[in-house]
């Protein structure tokens, strides 16, 4: 049986991009929490702005990516707005990729 790790999940979620910003959702700082229980993965994430036209696409993409990971039988992705996203949550890679200056 494959052991699912948080690092593997984050690597997988790096395959999902915010198409407007052209950067993956992990380096954008959109992933708030990852919970692993046996073969079930639950991810809590946010988006850069409420009313984002890509809302459903990105949530769907994250779920698809998780279900594609070896060992994952069920995946749940919840989008929350609290705390609101802020560019300070981005990694340096994310800032460089999106043209966000130093904060």
């Amino acid at each position, binding site marked *: 049986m494959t052991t699912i790790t948080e690092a593997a999940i984050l*690597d*997988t979620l*790096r*395959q*999902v*991009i915010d*198409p*407007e*910003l*052209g950067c*993956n959702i992990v*380096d954008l700082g959109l992933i708030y929490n990852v919970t692993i229980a046996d073969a079930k993965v639950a991810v809590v994430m946010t988006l*850069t*702005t*409420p*009313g*984002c*036209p*890509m809302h*459903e*696409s*990105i*949530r*769907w*993409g*994250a*779920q*698809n*990516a*998780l*279900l*594609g*990971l*070896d060992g994952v039988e*069920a*995946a749940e992705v919840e989008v929350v707005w609290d705390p609101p996203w802020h*560019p300070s949550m981005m*990694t*340096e*890679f994310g800032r460089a990729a*999106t*043209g*966000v*200056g130093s*904060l």
Partner: protein
Amino acid sequence: MSAAANPLKAKSGPAAMPFGAHAPSVTLPLAFILTGLLALCAGMGWLVLQPELLTTYHYNQYVIAVTHLFVLGWICSVIMGAMYQLVPVALETKLYSERLARWHFAFHVVGFIGMVWMFRVWNMKQVGHFGSLLAFGVGLFVYNITRTLRRVPKWNVTATAVAAALFWISFAVTAGLSIAIAKCSYDSTEGLATAQGVRTFVNGLRSIAGFLSRFDAIGAMHAHAHLGGVGFFTMLILGVSYKLIPMFTLSEIQSKRRAACSIVLLNISLTGSYITILLRSPWKLAFALLGVLALAIYGWELATILRARKRQTLDWGIKYFLTAIVFLFPVSALAVVLCWPGLPLNTFTGQLENVYGFLGLVGVASLAIMGMLYKIVPFLVWFKRYSIQIGRAQVPSLAELYSARVQALGYWMFLAGVGSTCVAAVFCSEIGVRMGCGLLALGIATLVFNVGLMLTHLFRPKARPFTLQTPPVPTPA
């Protein structure tokens, strides 16, 4: 090889596709947008072939025809199509009826093509007939978006601006139809009143015509134009940018009070301007200054939003849009000059009026729309082609759907075209106008090229299997 590396092995999602909860099918806005682009190409081609339209006074059938081609065929088509897409997503609600929107499209296309053709041959009776079709379509649009707005969970300044714009477009269409009625009903009523219903209808038209004959025709036309140009286009530019500019630049509204103030003042200004332009009252200067104040407050808020942005690099779509906003300065200055009490109507001031209208429609409205098209069309294409593949395969970003280099080239061509056409129009130079409009046509060609590139993704998608590439992890300081 993991399942994630091979999209074909990925398990299917647990539920049906969740998309479309807010937005309608992408084919609807795309149909409006492509119609608009065709009208833009036709309109600019017309100006290249007949540059004298911008070097003579604008109260003639050809200028009115080409203006309606730009206004209804290009600007209204794109704005209305985009609104069916953007209003639901921007205001986090659902479109009331996609079916009504499809009927609107049919009435709109038949209506505006017929109107432009009939203006050109100056058959005002047929302008009225085709205008009625267009007005019916606008009625469907206003009803549909109004019902959509009633579902908005949190009312905000953007929703207020959209509601105001719906009121003004209804008023503009009614005023336009009334002008057409005033120009044709006396010739066409004799001998028609054979049945009670027809007689009542014709008497109604005759009453409208009689009422409008109290005002001079040019004043009525200018007042009608401002209802559409300021009430619909400018109102939407202001209202929608309060949502979209923060979204695209990673910023937020800095003062809701300032934003609301700009929308309220613009509405008051337009109400006063309509009446005073119609009556040719010297008070129109006061209301024009109020409009300038509204735009100045808008500019102040926009500049503050941009200063607070987290995304330092502005893409070319945003640059197009912001340049259009900058063009509001010369347009506002011209508005004040042209409202000046006692200003003589001579060839020079007539040309300034031409430049005012041209700069408003091409420099402001068209450039702003072109900028937003670089956001909307990639989104529509991406949504249609790649939203089902995200998480299963490597999909392109929106910016990868078109060429930014061609986009930048188009920006400079368009800017050069606007500037040179305005100068040539002031000096009544037909050759200059033709060259300027030629540059504009080249700028438009770059947009058409890029839209073509985007649309190829619908037929030849460029999603690739995943290649697991973890970005370098930043070293802690």
